[in-house]
């Protein structure tokens, strides 16, 4: 039966070239924009290297603290909080890293060479290597012992190792950053700016940061210049860990006479944290804005297509009348029309998906920030590396097909049902 529908659809394509062109372009455009929206958010939300644990990562990146005398302080998070959270039952590891707002490219060079390269150098703790799943090409991460001993060691990205040393076998080699010399202890596979919580060109022990040391030693509150990523024991334990963290902060406040904290609902899941700035976050508003956009992207072209299908159905009333006269049910005719249109919609969907890939690849330096203003500005000078697994995966294909089905349904269903309301006599008498 589907074969007959396909043949029928192909004949209609040949008869109505303008209709087909407009239909395919309209569908392609809608699918292209929908897929850009989807892929951009897939890259931001889905478990991609090296943030493959996003599903069980909870994030704290902002904090407010107040005193009874009316002092108010707001900012990023202090590593001091990690001390308070150590040992929570559902906590597997804690990553402390420079907040991305504090990052800017620094010059890194090979000893003896005047010109180096500019890359992001990030202070991180030893737990960072447990929370984020970096693949080591050589060497290994620095350890807690290295941290405590303030060893001048560094882990570098593949690209940095190649540019500085011409090889990824760079363990034991030296690099200069600022006024310090570091020994390379590990080289990791390249990561992307699209994973901003973990991205850097060079990672060095947090204890080498004066800011970190100061915040760990002298702070009474949890406001600082860092981000904390918490890895829960399993995805199912996320809620338990959230409650434990909030309870730990409440307990600290109860014991501490001066500062009372407002964590603004944090810790939160990775995807929510992308929208967290230094204020209370209304995630419902963010989601509604995205849904509004998605709806507009599908609904506006669907109205277009509905109008055209409605007109075409008027032309096919005689055909419908004949089919009904020979016993075809409304359901089978509806199925036929939806199937015929699906052929065109899928053709448009393929065009749209290819267009979406093309736009994402050619505009990668700004496309990830297109739908919001957050997240990547610290890395404005680095173009995000868009890898094949970000684009060619079942989620992307599935959602593209889902969008086609939805678009097909909302554009063809109502006009077809309207056309089917005519009686056989009315249909056979229609002359258009």
């Amino acid at each position, binding site marked *: 039966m589907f074969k007959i529908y396909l043949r029928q659809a192909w004949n209609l394509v040949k008869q109505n070239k303008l209709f087909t062109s407009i239909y395919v372009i309209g569908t392609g455009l809608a699918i292209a924009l929908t897929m850009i929206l989807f892929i951009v958010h897939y890259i931001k939300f889905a478990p991609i290297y090296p943030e493959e644990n996003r599903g069980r990562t909870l994030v704290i990146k902002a904090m407010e603290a107040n005193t009874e005398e009316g002092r108010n302080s707001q900012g990023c998070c202090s590593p001091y909080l990690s001390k308070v959270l150590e040992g929570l039952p559902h906590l597997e590891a804690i990553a402390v890293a420079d907040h991305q707002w504090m990052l800017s490219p620094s010059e890194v060079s090979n000893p003896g060479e005047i010109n180096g390269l500019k890359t992001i150098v990030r202070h991180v703790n030893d737990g960072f290597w447990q929370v984020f799943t970096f693949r080591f090409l050589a060497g290994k991460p620095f350890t807690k012992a290295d941290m405590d001993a303030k060893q001048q060691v560094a882990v570098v990205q593949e690209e940095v190792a190649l540019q500085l040393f011409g090889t990824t076998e760079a363990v034991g080699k030296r690099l200069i950053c600022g006024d310090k010399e570091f020994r390379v202890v590990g080289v990791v596979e390249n990561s992307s700016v699209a994973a901003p919580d973990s991205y850097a060109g060079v990672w060095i022990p947090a204890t080498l940061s004066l800011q970190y040391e100061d915040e760990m030693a002298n702070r009474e509150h949890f406001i600082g210049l860092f981000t904390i990523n918490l890895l829960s024991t399993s995805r199912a334990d996320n809620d338990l860990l959230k409650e434990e963290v909030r309870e730990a902060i409440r307990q600290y406040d109860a014991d501490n006479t001066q500062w009372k904290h407002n964590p603004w609902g944090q810790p939160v899941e990775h995807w929510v944290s992308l929208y967290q700035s230094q204020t209370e976050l209304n995630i419902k508003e963010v989601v509604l804005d995205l849904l509004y956009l998605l709806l507009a992207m599908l609904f506006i072209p669907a109205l*277009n297509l509905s109008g055209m299908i409605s007109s075409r159905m008027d032309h096919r009333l005689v055909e419908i009348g004949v089919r009904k006269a020979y016993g075809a049910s409304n359901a089978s005719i509806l199925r036929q029309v939806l199937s015929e249109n699906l052929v065109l919609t899928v053709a448009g969907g393929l065009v749209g998906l290819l267009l979406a890939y093309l736009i994402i690849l050619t505009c990668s330096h700004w496309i990830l920030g*297109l739908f919001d203003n957050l997240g990547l500005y610290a890395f404005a000078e680095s173009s995000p590396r868009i890898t094949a697994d970000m684009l060619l995966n079942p989620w992307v294909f599935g959602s593209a097909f889902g969008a086609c089905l939805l678009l097909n349904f909302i554009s063809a269903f109502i006009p077809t049902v309207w056309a089917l309301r005519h009686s056989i006599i009315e249909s056979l008498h229609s002359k258009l």
Partner: protein
Amino acid sequence: MIKMIFKQLWNQRRQNGWILLELTVITFFIFTTSVEVVRGLADYALPNGYEKEGAYCLQLKEDKAYSFKYDVKEDKAKDSIFHANFNQLLLAIKGCPEVEAVAVTNQHSFPGSGSQTALAMYPEDSTFTPLNTVRYRTYLADGTDFIKAYGLTDAHTGELMQLPERIHEGRKVIVSASFARYMFGTIDVVGKGIGKVHNPSGKDLQEIVGVYQDFKRTDFQVGYPSILTINTKMKGQNPFDHFIIYRLKEGVDGNAFEKKVMNEIAPRFANTPTVIQGIESFEESLNWYNDIIGVYNHLRYTAVMLFFVLLCVFLGMTGTFWVRCRARRQDIGLMRSIGASQATITRQFMTEAWMLVTIGFLIAQPLIIHYIHGLKWNVIDLTAHYWQDSKTWLTLATDALIYILMMLIALLGTWFPVKQASKDLPAEALRDE
């Protein structure tokens, strides 16, 4: 004719319903997407309050050998190598024949500098509500002229401002027009005092010696009330926290001068505390700032969405009128046979298209009014009241823009199929009748 077209539209209400609904939805959607952009573009069109072209910022960095060696106490006690070196660098730039003016500022004091400092200011002998004010800062060194280097304009005349004569006396301040208006209700405020404490008087006061036109720190925002404080001494301040701003004489090539600085002046300071890192024009630093705070992405987003919905309008109108022309082929043939010209037929269909767009646009208006009333409004300027800060004017301007755009695209989309249909010969068109 209008009455007849209304009747036509009503008779084909089911077919017209789809395109009408689409036009209504699109009108509302474009409005919500573009209203803030229209406001931003209106802000962009306002004068900058300074001359962007020809102004550059010299980026300095600390030489590795001198890292962490700067000592505030020592610097205050005697002339340190840090300041001597900085002054030599300043003189080297100022001494170039291509340079018209130089200034020394801190990092919050030039357009697109990324961050800003603000402080509450109070007017002289008054319990007036304080105004949170943006503070720009300049340091007076030998021969520096912040006003000329930036090209600040006088609030009274709109002409390039002159450096006030008594500026070197200390405790002097220059304020922006909106600051003056908010504080004193007028821009004639030279000689008045302001301070950082409640009800300031005597030693707390700083005297206003000039009023400049509002200074836009970024391209897409109106100038916030601001003051320019003048520090007569740089001692006790780390020179690495400062920037040297210079303005080139008219006709001088900025790139050629940058090469000259990097090739001839920078090497002379290679092993001194202050090293030249690079040069950035005001234009470049504004571009960078607009990029990182998402202004360009917002513009891109609006452009993409506008393109998308206008293409939908185009396809919708083309599709609708293509089908309509086919359905009314006989009508067209009949009209042609009784003497209607191609132009008459085209005009009739175009009028139909115009009426559809207008009806769709009008139906969307209650939704737009509801939306704009609920919009959180952030009016930055406290006194100037630019038209774009009024919801009514902004709605009217955005509406007008949307209407014109949609009309153009809709008429273009209609014109193709109608032109094609009106070309048919009457005999051909009436064959099926």
